[in-house]
């Protein structure tokens, strides 16, 4: 009996990809393990292997097709004795997610899904010419871009591309800037964040390390002591646990211990927090951990424009910076100002959306829950102000407090654990600075107090949800 061959997913977060090339043609006999085709995303390339024996009866998606959704039938395999010319596709075996349109500012504000939908973008051939530009015309409706001069041209760009551009721009300006980490050079980055850097800057400045986090973190700090400006990539921050001694004891404390003589201008960056379906050891948010350490700055951007502007600032900063990215956000697109040298100051929160009834404070991927909740609350007549912290340390208490003085209510949203979390810190700062303005106790929405489970349903339960944010916002509004 005929079988559909479906577009596979390279990773749990992939939704679509390019069918780059067929290696078999219609009528070819195939056996299990034969390579049928190659598929590509902007992250990686993979071969599609045959699982069953038979004849490749019909190719449904031709070479070079972009944006093929995962689970779309791409070919039909005829079984033994079947007439290959009469077989027909049964159609997608599971509902295939539709291709995500590149988010416009409005689409971002609406939020795309309860759990943010990562968009696996097809490989771009020319990375320097992104999508059609838009222009800021109305600043009040565009708080996210309040720092940018009116009339600035905007280009849509993924967080991944924005981070790469930030590094490339800083490397062009300063020979002391280098990038090191696992798979950053020849492989083009485990998550393709360093794509193209080796080609432009060469092996002296883009350095593949062995799998040896403790060692290369220490090497990075030692190099920074001499005045180089290393950007050390951790494949994920989970692996930085092996190196946390060098980050804290060597990078963060030496300036103080040397009476101001010897600092470490270094950036530790990489994806932080939960990806999707990768279990407890690969799904942890370290924002609160690093934010406790004097001598470090801790940055956790949400939008591509903040990712770019903040990473550029981080590389120029004379202090050690922990720069927490998020794998799910890498593929999401945002408008980024087209400016020669766009930086965002470290330590300043941004009011992403203005409101009057309740303040929602979040950062990084937490913003996706916060913004979606704000949309839902609006339908129920509650006006939520959403603050994107952007920097966890030093924390912009002023912006939070000013907002709480206006709304009288606050909830916090993060994927990290509740105990001693960023939300706990925010609640305390509000107590210290705006207690008399509060009309309700602060509520924190966090990841649950459990190691991250693998099962899809349990994982969803372990993460915050939009419903929890909405419910909390209503509770503090006594609705």
């Amino acid at each position, binding site marked *: 009996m005929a079988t559909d061959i479906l577009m596979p997913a390279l990773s749990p977060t992939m939704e679509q990809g390019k069918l780059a090339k067929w290696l078999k043609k219609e009528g070819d006999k195939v056996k299990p393990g034969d390579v049928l085709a190659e598929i590509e995303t902007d992250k990686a390339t993979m071969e599609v292997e045959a699982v069953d024996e038979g004849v490749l009866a019909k190719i449904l998606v031709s070479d070079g097709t972009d944006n093929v959704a995962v689970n779309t039938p791409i070919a039909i395999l005829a079984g033994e004795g079947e007439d290959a010319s009469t077989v027909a596709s049964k159609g997608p075996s599971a509902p295939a997610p539709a291709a995500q349109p590149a988010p416009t500012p409005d689409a971002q504000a609406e939020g795309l899904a309860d759990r943010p939908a990562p968009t696996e973008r097809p490989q771009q051939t020319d990375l320097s010419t992104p999508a059609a530009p838009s222009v800021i015309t109305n600043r009040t409706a565009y708080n996210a871009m309040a720092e940018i001069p009116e009339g600035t041209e905007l280009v849509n760009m993924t967080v991944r591309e924005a981070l790469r551009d930030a590094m490339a721009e800083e490397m062009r300006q300063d020979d002391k800037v*280098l990038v090191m980490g696992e798979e950053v050079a020849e492989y083009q980055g485990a998550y393709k964040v360093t794509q193209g850097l080796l080609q432009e800057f060469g092996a*002296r400045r883009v350095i593949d*390390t*062995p799998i*040896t986090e*403790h*060692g*290369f*973190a*220490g*090497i*990075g*700090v*030692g*190099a*920074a*002591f*001499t*005045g*180089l400006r290393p950007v050390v990539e951790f494949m994920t921050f989970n692996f930085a646990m092996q190196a946390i*001694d*060098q980050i804290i*004891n*060597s990078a963060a404390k*030496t*300036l*103080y*211990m*040397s*009476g*101001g*003589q*010897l*600092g470490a201008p270094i950036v530790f960056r990489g994806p932080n927090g939960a990806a999707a379906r990768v279990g407890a050891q690969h799904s942890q948010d370290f924002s609160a951990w690093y934010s406790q350490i*004097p*001598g470090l*700055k801790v940055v956790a951007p949400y939008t591509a424009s903040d990712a770019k502007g903040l990473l550029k600032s981080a590389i120029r900063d*004379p*202090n050690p910076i922990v720069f927490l990215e998020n794998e799910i956000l890498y593929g999401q697109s945002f408008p980024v100002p087209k400016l020669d040298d766009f930086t965002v100051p470290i330590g300043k929160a941004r009011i992403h959306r203005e409101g009057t009834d309740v303040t929602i404070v979040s950062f990084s991927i937490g913003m996706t829950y916060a913004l979606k909740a704000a949309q839902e609350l609006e339908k129920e007549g509650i006006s939520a102000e959403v603050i994107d912290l952007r920097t966890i340390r030093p924390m912009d208490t002023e912006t939070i407090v000013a907002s709480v003085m206006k709304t009288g209510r606050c909830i916090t949203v993060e994927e990290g654990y509740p105990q001693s979390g960023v939300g706990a810190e925010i609640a305390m700062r509000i107590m210290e600075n705006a207690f008399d303005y509060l009309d309700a106790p602060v509520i924190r929405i966090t990841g649950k107090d459990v190691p991250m489970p693998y099962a899809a349903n349990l994982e969803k339960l372990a993460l915050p949800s939009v419903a929890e944010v909405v419910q909390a916002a209503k509770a503090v509004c006594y609705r």
Partner: protein
Amino acid sequence: MAVAARKAGRAGTGAANKSTPNTPQFDKNQDLAAYNDMLLIRRFEEKSGQMYGMGLIGGFCHLYIGQEAVVVGMQMATKEGDQVITGYRDHGHMLACGMDAKGVMAELTGRRGGLSKGKGGSMHMFSKEKHFYGGHGIVGAQVSLGTGIAFANRYRDNGNVCLTYFGDGAANQGQVYESFNMAQLWKLPVVYVIENNRYAMGTAVSRASAQTDFSKRGVSFGIPGEQVDGMDVRAVYAAGQRAIEHARSGKGPYILEMQTYRYRGHSMSDPAKYRTKDEVTRMREEHDPIEQVRRRLLESWKLSEDELKAIDSKVREIVNESAEFATHDPEPDPSELYTDILL
């Protein structure tokens, strides 16, 4: 200056070799310089011990007494620009690098004139000017850091070598081998100086190390190494020259196991009950690094007792001045609590 014989060096073979029994000779000026520098460390450390006993120095205080030939011999083999990084037993390294004795002592007493303004303490002093990168309290951390300094040397192609010191205890830390691997992979200009003083705090080498020949610790990476009589400053100097030349010439890292001995406990609070008094006495009487040079100065170079006394009193003067300064210099201003956290 006489160049020491290069008999023992079999660089590049990855094999570990005991340094030659034909110890290279020093000329008079070299012996005088070594004597002076080692004596300064010895007297400084004795004074530190006293001041610790008087309650002027707090916390941890790890003395270098007995190991002086290692850092002094190695410094004699360096050139301007070469860097030094070490662990917590660091006072000797700072003095050998030419850092001001007053500043070191005042840091030990936690005063504002200390090299780290009183905020670092015994284990945390630095001097960019003297190319000394600390002073690190986490056992083994300085090995990755020193490898990073060597990485920067290669990145800048400045011809400098980083001397990275650690003990027999630190030699069992994982990041040491992570660093060895990258240093050899990238041919970094680093010399790993393992100061084997036989005890990791209270644990004898044989109780902690499956391979007690530390010069072989780089064999699986192809890093050459040799065991050196770390009580003889001439042997240290000769081995240091070979190792530094190897690293500077682009051949990558080199390991020197310095066989040495600390006379005092691990720190001031250590009664050292894990070894016999006889063992310590024998080392002091038969192998003391300063006494060896002193004998040569008297016998080979025909210095008089008076001439040696003059050196002694000059050294004592420096040490006493540093102690005086460190005792009377004020503590840091309370406002210093919140400075130097970020730039």
